[in-house]
């Protein structure tokens, strides 16, 4: 696994590169080349806009849209109708085309992005269907009505020396704009959120990424840019029909270009677009359009099977592997110096989290029933109970991964049981997963920086990275910052979970069996670590089976059995209570 996360937004080189390349290409119409070159380059740029805009949502977040043709087509028809029928000046139709496409995308996304199961697959199918639905509507209404729309009479704005070069220059401007947007998103908080959604959407939401909003924004941007491409293309072809516009060709081509170039690279789709447009031209020029289609399909299959990172992805990872082949050492022991303070708000001992009559049901099983207890600010509370007693469900409900069926959860005086998971994270609750769930395609550093950006601290990217390095040093992972999570062993992954939760600077930390599977000496390190976390001002609830750690750490314990609280109090007192021992050891031992 060598797919790499985006580097932070510093580095103006890519932006300067995009603008510089655009400036150079803007000189082409003045070279006096044969007309053919301008129209060929126009097509390359046209596909660069479509593929790159598609990639902003679909490549970064993994939600593959097969409906890019619908948004492209919406832009085409917006411009066609406004310019040809209502005689709006062409340039003014482009913002309208972008707006119409974006609104359509938002409407569709608002429905489809709410889905929690089979999300990617459903999105792909619904967007595919949307292409034909939009086509049907346009065909059946006066927007088109059947005969198509002619733009012959629409004057081409005079930008270049000829109408053809003006179109070329407009496509160039659109391509520069699209690449700038793609690069900006790539290096931004939004981009980081999208890459996290790609790897594990539920975990991303729990880490504080507002997944729904991220997807909607990216989708709207993606659709708007496709709409602009459509507007320009309407003038280029000067005759718009439903059957040509709302076909399978646009989504197929765009997916192919992006996958071939590399969907995790901002420039990948552009590389793919240039390659495929040249290939396409070779086939259509030789009158082998049908064979060309088959080659399309074959290249798509081959690219997915043999080059999942795409051309640019493969090149980038080779470059990086060479660069990083030196710096792989073993993880150092945890350093307890140089700790950032987390938080010391509020009064020690006051109720921080108040759980009242909490209930959660899964089909047929009552996982939690009438659970009520307080977590006090500054304490370490151990949550105990046999397997299946509801401990992990409790953490899942408090962190917002599951919604409670009944009861209330109050955090710092504010009801949170109905909040989405990212809002709960933002409020100051962080968690770890029993089985570590790192974002597999983000570096260790970015995994941690993500929560610094989206958690309570809500830092910008550069600050988040600095914060992340401190927490990696704290958990002993300093030397593994640039590694990818699949390269870590279990011990390191557990500590990555911890570092990730801490970088959010939580007021309440929920630890779900961080010690399970660790060796005795590793457990000692971890106990020291948990203590020093509390000293930095974070309240801790931990689920644990390692009794040595419970006795060493817990100020109080709460015992669950079959979703019901059966004991609460000081560790020694509770463990002596009648029901508690029998719940753990069976009736005859009690």
């Amino acid at each position, binding site marked *: 696994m060598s797919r790499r996360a985006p580097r932070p937004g510093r580095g103006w080189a890519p932006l300067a590169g995009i603008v510089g390349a655009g400036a150079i290409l803007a000189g082409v119409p003045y070279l006096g080349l044969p007309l053919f070159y301008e129209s060929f380059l126009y097509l390359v740029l046209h596909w660069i806009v479509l593929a790159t805009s598609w990639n902003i949502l679909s490549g970064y977040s993994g939600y593959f849209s097969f409906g890019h043709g619908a948004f492209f087509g919406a832009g085409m028809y917006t411009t066609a109708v406004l310019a040809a029928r209502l005689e709006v000046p062409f340039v003014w139709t482009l913002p309208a085309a972008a707006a119409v496409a974006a609104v359509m995308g938002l409407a569709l996304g608002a429905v489809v992005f709410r889905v929690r199961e089979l999300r990617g*697959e459903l999105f*792909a199918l619904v967007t595919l269907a949307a292409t034909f639905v939009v086509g049907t509507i346009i065909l059946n209404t006066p927007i088109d009505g059947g005969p198509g729309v002619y733009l012959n009479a629409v004057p081409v704005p005079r930008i270049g020396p000829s109408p053809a070069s003006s179109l070329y220059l407009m496509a160039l401007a659109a391509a520069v704009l699209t690449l700038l947007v793609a690069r900006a998103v790539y290096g931004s908080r939004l981009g980081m959120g999208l890459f996290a959604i790609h790897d594990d959407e539920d975990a991303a939401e729990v880490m504080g990424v507002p997944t729904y909003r991220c997807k909607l924004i990216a989708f709207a941007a993606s659709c708007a840019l496709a709409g602009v491409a459509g507007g320009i293309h309407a003038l280029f072809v000067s005759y718009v029909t439903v059957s040509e516009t709302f076909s399978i060709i646009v989504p197929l081509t765009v997916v192919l270009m992006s996958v071939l170039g590399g969907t995790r690279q901002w420039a990948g789709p552009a590389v793919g677009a240039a390659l495929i447009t040249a290939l396409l031209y070779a086939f259509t020029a030789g009158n082998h359009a049908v064979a060309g*289609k088959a080659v399309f399909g074959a290249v798509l299959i081959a690219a997915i099977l043999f080059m999942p990172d795409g051309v640019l992805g493969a090149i980038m990872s080779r470059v990086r592997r060479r660069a990083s082949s030196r710096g792989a050492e073993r993880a150092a022991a945890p350093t307890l110096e140089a700790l950032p303070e987390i938080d010391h708000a509020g009064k020690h001992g006051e109720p921080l989290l108040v759980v009242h009559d909490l209930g959660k049901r899964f089909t047929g099983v009552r996982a939690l029933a009438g659970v009520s207890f307080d977590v006090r600010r500054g304490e370490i509370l151990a949550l105990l109970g046999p397997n299946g007693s509801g401990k992990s469900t409790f953490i899942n409900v408090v962190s917002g991964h599951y919604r409670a069926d009944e009861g209330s959860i109050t955090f710092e005086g504010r009801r949170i049981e109905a909040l989405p998971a990212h809002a709960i994270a933002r409020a100051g609750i962080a968690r770890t997963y029993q089985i570590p769930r790192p974002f597999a395609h983000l570096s260790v550093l970015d995994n941690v920086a993500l929560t610094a950006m989206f958690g309570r601290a809500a830092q910008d990217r550069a600050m988040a990275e600095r914060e992340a390095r401190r927490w990696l040093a704290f958990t002993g992972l300093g030397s593994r910052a640039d590694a990818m999570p699949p390269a870590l062993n279990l011990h390191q992954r557990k500590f990555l979970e911890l570092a990730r939760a801490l970088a959010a600077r939580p007021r309440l930390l929920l630890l779900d069996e961080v010690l399970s599977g660790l060796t005795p000496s590793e457990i000692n390190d971890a106990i020291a670590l948990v203590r020093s976390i509390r000293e930095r001002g974070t309240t801790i609830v931990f689920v644990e089976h390692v009794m040595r750690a419970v006795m060493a750490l817990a100020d109080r314990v709460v015992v669950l059995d079959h979703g019901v609280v059966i004991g609460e109090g000081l560790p020694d007192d509770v463990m002596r209570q009648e029901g508690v021992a029998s719940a753990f050891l069976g009736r005859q031992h009690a």
Partner: protein
Amino acid sequence: MQFPSATLLAQSVLSGIFVGALYGLLGLGLTLSWGLLRQINLAYFALTFLAAYLCYQLATVGGMDPLATILVIAPGFFLLGVALQWVFERVHVTPFNSLLITFGLTVIVESVIQSIWTADFRRLESVYGVAKFRLGPLYVPAPELITLGVAIALSLALWAALRFTDLGKAMRAAAEDGPIASAFGVDRRFNALALAGTCAALSGVAGVCLALTYTLAPAQIYAWIGVVFAAVMLGGIGRAWGPLVAGIAIGVSEALTMALTAPSWAPLVSFSLLIVLLLVRPGRE
């Protein structure tokens, strides 16, 4: 708006049921491979059209009875499905990549069909095509009735096979938790091959029914995807009865839409139903 007569409405409902049967038949292989193999196989649409064209070829050039071509096509497609599954297993295809790869396959098959049979419309003329009988005031065309019969029979057979046979239980167990099923002695590889073959054979049968009832053109492959997927989703993924029941519901709604408004609005029905489903039931946690 003029309200159509009762006879016309009844005739539309009947034709909706018939169209729905074809949706159900097309969706059957899809829902089973999605639910039990975790593959979203768009290539079944291409295979269905390939079978339809083969049926057309065997019947018009080879002089075979169109229904008898099932005897050739179904076993052939079974082997094709097994071969495809064998390749899929070799390359470890994830559910999402299966969608992309079979999309690529669909495009390839489409261009193969187009290069052999051209992009023109083809219509199978057969003894079944002219056979019609009356049921009271209603016309019942024979090919559609055959399709309905085949769809009901196959849905019933597969439902029973999955529910009552050991092989069916093993397949459902493997879909629930593959490694655990293997630990209990389920031969997942063999089952997957058998299931993939069955699904491909089903698309072969669907293709023959398609050739009997519809005019064929290569580009129409994509026209079916949306509505059949809607039937699969509405019917519940992995359920043998799902596509047929949901398909008939969609078919009837479409037919009524056509009767009450204009035929060209029909494609919106399945999409609207799908969106309503997503709005009402965005999925459990």
